[in-house]
């Protein structure tokens, strides 16, 4: 009997040994949502989280944003040797099953901004709070505007009955918003940016890897240009550029692309070597090595190469030609490879078979910051607005300013005489040359209601041989200018009106 008692006593101790509190287990690397905004430091971390989202989205600043507008337009031709990435965009065969990821990716980040705006009043009033609010408002507006550029008509080509995606301003998980009037959407973008502008710190304080007052003004110049509000476009561009626009000269221009200078970059998304996202470079090519240098040296194996006719627009004296391209062999054929995003050390190889001594493991290939707004674009916005509002001398002056910082031995005499359509064409040409491979061309064609007209007779090789684009044109106003919303969202949320044709 004694042993039974012993055993029973022992057993009851064992049973009592575990209590219900043993079930209270919490994660080691997360905080409860309610506690994520309780201090200035936490809110700073939340702000970092917004920008982290911009970087993490495969469809934005450090993802395919630097190529998608070029693949869709007349700047690029498919390299038959490449991995055939983004081919559905190149050939306009996207459907609601395979859509551009910015819809989901964008709302993931705007939700972070919304949560900051909802909780910011937990902090005491002051500069930090104002700046945080300003950054959240500006980032949200910037992203929504870019999403609208992808999925919807542009303002000047839309009517009051045209819709775009919903401008969500809540972090509620139960929100199922319907499509929004496109014109109203533009109003909200502008309202957020205008509200942010006085709150946010200037670039001198925030640096260009956070949104800042100059960048907000620059973004406003972009939105006003799309809206056709040229006076405001010029006014905001003036704020962004200041009296002396910080426009890198010919010597420093290539350093922008190796992140060696911040000159001329109003806002970029930081992509450190530890983040190690090589999409900016890999979107364009993969670099392959072979030990012995020969004339058939393997080097850049491009995904896309410049459209033959487009490439001819770059003059030999144009600094952008050497900063954006390198003509080199791959497997015996000469190509004009796009090396704009080769990495912080520059191209891994400087020429055929010449290893680049500065390549080191500290600077992985293709890993660079995602430039989202440069002074050059703001200047281009301003000169076009000036032209369209009749301020021809101002437009010409801006054009000369840009070109004198791009062309070696530039003589402004001819440009100074430009007016009318030739002036506009030169402004638009410079826009295309400057912002090539930077997330602009397709949206710009859409804004200008122009067709995509690719070089139908030349292929991908440097001499124009190869396979010309199978789809050479996309008529102006074609429904494929507006990318489809994901079918999964349409299925869930019938309030979202799918774009026509999908």
């Amino acid at each position: 009997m004694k042993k039974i008692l012993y055993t029973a006593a022992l057993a009851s101790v064992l049973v009592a040994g575990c209590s219900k509190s043993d079930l209270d287990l919490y994660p080691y690397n997360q905080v409860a949502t309610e506690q994520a905004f309780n201090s200035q430091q936490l809110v700073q971390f939340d702000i970092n989280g917004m920008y982290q989202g911009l970087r993490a989205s495969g469809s934005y600043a450090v993802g395919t944003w630097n190529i998608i507008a070029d693949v869709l337009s007349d700047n690029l031709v498919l390299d038959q040797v490449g991995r055939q990435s983004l081919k559905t965009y190149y050939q306009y065969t996207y459907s609601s099953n395979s859509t551009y990821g910015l819809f989901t990716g964008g709302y993931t980040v705007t939700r972070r901004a919304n949560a900051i705006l909802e909780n910011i009043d937990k902090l005491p009033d002051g500069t930090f709070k104002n700046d945080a609010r300003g950054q959240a408002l500006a980032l949200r507006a910037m992203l929504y505007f870019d999403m609208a550029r992808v999925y919807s008509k542009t303002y000047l080509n839309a009517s009051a009955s045209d819709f775009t995606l919903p401008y969500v301003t809540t972090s509620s998980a139960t929100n199922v918003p319907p499509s929004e009037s496109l014109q109203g959407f533009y109003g909200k973008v502008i309202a957020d940016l205008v509200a942010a502008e006085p709150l946010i710190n200037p670039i001198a304080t925030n640096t260009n890897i956070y949104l800042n007052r100059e960048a907000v003004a620059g973004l406003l110049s972009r939105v006003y240009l799309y809206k056709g509000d040229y006076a405001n476009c010029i006014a905001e561009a003036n704020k962004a550029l200041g009296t002396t626009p910080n426009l890198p000269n010919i010597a420093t221009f290539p350093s922008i692309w190796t992140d060696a200078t911040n000159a001329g970059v109003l806002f970029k998304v930081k992509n450190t070597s530890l983040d190690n996202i090589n999409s900016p470079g890999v979107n364009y090519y993969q670099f392959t090595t072979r030990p012995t240098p020969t004339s058939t040296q393997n080097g850049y194996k491009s995904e896309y190469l410049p459209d033959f006719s487009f490439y001819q627009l770059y003059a030999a004296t144009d600094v952008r030609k050497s900063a954006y391209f390198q003509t080199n062999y791959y497997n015996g054929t000469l190509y004009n490879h796009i090396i704009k995003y080769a990495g912080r050390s520059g191209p891994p190889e400087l020429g055929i078979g010449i290893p680049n001594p500065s390549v080191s493991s500290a600077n992985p290939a293709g890993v660079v910051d995602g430039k989202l707004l440069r002074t050059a674009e703001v200047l281009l916005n301003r000169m076009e607005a000036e032209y369209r509002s009749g301020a021809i001398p101002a437009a010409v002056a801006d054009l000369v300013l840009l070109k004198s910082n791009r062309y070696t031995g530039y003589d402004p005499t001819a440009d100074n005489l430009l007016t009318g359509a030739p002036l506009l064409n030169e402004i638009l040409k410079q826009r295309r040359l400057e912002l090539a491979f930077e997330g602009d061309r397709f949206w710009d064609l859409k804004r200008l209601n122009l067709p995509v007209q690719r070089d139908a007779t030349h292929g991908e090789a440097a001499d124009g041989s190869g396979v010309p684009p199978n789809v050479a044109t996309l008529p102006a106003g074609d429904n494929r200018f507006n990318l489809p919303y994901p079918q999964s969202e349409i299925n869930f949320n019938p309030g979202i009106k799918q774009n026509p044709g999908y």
Partner: protein
Amino acid sequence: MKQKLLTILVLFAVGITSALAQSKTITGKVTGADDGLTLPGVSVKVQGTSMGTQTNAEGKFTVNVPATAKALIFSYLGYASQTVAIGSRTVIDVKLNPDTKALAEVVVVGYQTIKRSDVVGALSTVDGKDLEAKPLASFTQLLQGAATGLQVTAANGRPGSNAVIRLRGQGSITAGSDPLIVVDGIQITTAAYNGLNPDDIENVSVLKDAQATAIYGSRGSNGVIIVTTKTGKANAPSLRYSFRFGKTQRQDFNNVRLMTSAEKLQYEYDAQYTNPTLDSMITNRGYVVTPPFPGAPGSKINFITPAQRQTIWDLAISRGAGDWSKYLFQNATMRTHEISLSGGADKLTYYLSGDINDNPGVERFSEFNRKGGRLNVTYQVKDWFKVGTNIGVTSSHEQRVRDAYNTQNSQGALFFFNPYEQPYNADGSYNLTAQGFSPLEGAVNNPTLYDRVNQFGTFYGEAHFLNHLTLKSQYALNYNTLAYQSYLEPGSNLAGILGYNQKNDQNNTDYFYSWTNTANWVQTIDNKHTFNALIGTEYDKDHVYNSSLTGRGFPSKDFTTLDNAATPTTATTSITEFSLISYFASLSYDFDKRYFINVSGRRDGSSRFGANVRFANFGAIGLAWDIKNEKFLTLPNWVSELKLRGSYGTAGNNTIPEYTPYGTYSVTTKYNDQTALIPSKLSNPNLTWETGYTKDAGLTYGFLDGRITGELDWYNRVNKNLLYPVNVSQTTGFTSYTGNIGAVQNQGIELAINGAVIRKKDLKWNVSFSYSHNDNKITQLYSDNAAGQAAYGITKLVVGQPINVYFLMREKGVDPADGQEVYYNIDGTETKTYAGSQAVVLSGKSPIVKYFGTIGTDVSYKGFDFDARFYYSGGNWIFNVVDQDATSSGDVSTNLLSYAANYWKKPGDVVPFPRVLDPATGKPDTKQATEFFTDKYLQKGDYVTLRDVTLGYTVPGKYTKRLGIANIRVFAQGTNLATWTKFHGNPETGDAGETTTANGTLYQYGYPPIKGYTFGIDVRF
């Protein structure tokens, strides 16, 4: 000495109770009636008393009996008990008859062992004798075909890979559809079970219905598999050595083949594509390309003379690899050595084993090597107290070739590299090919290594009181470590592409322990009423610790540790924990072995659920009626066994990630290398258990003196509150949160028939057949917004349809008039434009298998034995991504399946594939060259395979005994030697590529399934 003291004590105690009764001593010897060998460890009891003893190693016994004793009862596992009258004898020699059914008499169920005849629930067992006859390479192979309702699909052919195990269909939608696997009282992870040596396994119980699984509560809703490892018998030591030698190879594609060099070159030419490898050959030869070059668009190959073209082609064909599988795959040689020693003395039993298994994969450069050992010991400390331990330790080393949808994956490389490309350059270096990559170079220079140590340990004490009560306390642990190394070696091609070399080392320790305490009371009153009551508690805790370190800038590939890295880049660790507290009870009663009832219940609390719904109760009731034993019914003599069973009950599923209910911000990301806080997941405080409600009715039958035996079961299992991501609008910044979304029903029948056609002493022939049918259907969705699980949104969850029913636009075929694909809109009208919005639910077509089973036969004649087993499976549909990729002109740069050449060329062609060129432009037709997701690529997954054939010979004991060897057996086995299917490729791939989330939905480029031969020898001393 101690033994004698105890014996004296017992005798003394007995002496007191039997007062001054007279006694006498009886001696004797026990042998087996079948072979005349002595039997050690036979229990010898004096009828009507608790007195008794056991036979010693020579099979002899000595027992003191009171003068009043009438008879002795001899009992021994595997033999029929015998009662022998004593009379006036003092020497009693006994021959025991083997009882073929006796070994199956005892089965392991939840937390206890009961007699087979007392089973109320639906369960199947695989026991020692079945396992001994068949050489088994893995635990997975052991389970295949082991029970009706148990569907085991090898994930792929990688050595050491897991299997997809489904018991009675798919009850859950998330990953947690695997049954609970319990080894010696502790649940083990699916990652650990391949650390088990199948030869260490004594028996396996498969618990299927709620009556059997309810006692496992929150983890039992997808069934339970209980594995018991071997223990020694009180016996002379038995030493066993076995050696196996095998060859495995990749299974060929069924019904399709890749293009040859000549076929591919012709296809490329017709599609106006030139591989750059050919381009450079044209340039090097200085051929004039007309129209004049430069400036001419189009492929060069189209603008040289036909003779020149043929020269280039011939050259490419002669240089090329031809069949890349020669370079990417190998015939792998497998070797296993195994040794075990088991036995016991009167208080101690032991089982000791060790094995070494070298298993190179069929993918070149992949291998899986395992070394393991096991020690199982029991010790009878006191006559009422026993302790024991089961300890198994396995270490394994694995090298993998990358398994993903890219050029670094061997099966993918078969397609991505054209047959006319050469694997090596003339100087012996790797040819980087037009893809800019060499799969061989990648496999050699970018190795991925996994080193694991898995430990299974069980320690228990068991006390027996008052004749009826057993108390047991058991501490069990499963401790697994993994060291992972992935090296991007300096000088490798990929390091050149990325601009850095890098090594990533990860360490993972998973420490799971479980403390179980049970009390079990078993009593029979008046030989009619048997009670079996069990109560218990269990506490489980899991602690997982991960670390990951990365460094770059290694001076050379000879330096493989991170202290040699110039730049350390990342260092992270993480911890996750899980705990479960449980209380359970079970009560069984039977009346006169005719009427059986069992009631069981369990209360579980899990850390994975929100505080409000953390605890839940599960329970079941089971009834059985043994008709054969019924008094008022006299069944005809040809019915040897007939038992009717029925049960109803609940069990749960808690296999969701840790910390799921909490809405959290995660701190693990960085911006500008500084801390960033990002929303991690939405909260769901109402998240609760998924609960399975199972009804089961079954019949166990035996006819003609057991010549025909089997079982028939019907079941209906409804899993409610399915755990699954609940969709939210993507405009909320999330796509889903984990919630409870609805209910799914699995209903089916299971039939097993075993026939003993010939049952002679020297010749035995058995046939067996099993059939399992399962209908899977979603019966309820709380909202209409649940997404499908497969990639590309090609499946859906729809009420009234199986889980993940396909959701695709329908394809009619190619229009013979113009060669364009024709599709159907939702309303059935025809269109030549694909639109994702026109996808429809393809009723009844889902990746879920509807029926499966085995057909087997075994024959033994004297020392020879032969065994063959077919496995069949079907009713499921697979989206064939390989077919889709490799028949489309969308990407001509990679190799294609030969029948892709069967595309539309001229009006009137009735062909499977659309035109390649657009007649209007004379250029490739991009609209037709796109790989849309339509039902064109949806194929039936039905197949029959010859799972295994075994031929063995056991050398008769009379020859071997002279050598001191008890037994020698040699055997040869073939596995998966033939498959019959209409599927294009390999239908039996549980996970056809590690990018697949829904098993069986997409057929991709995963590690190929294998076939092979094994030869072996077993020697027992």
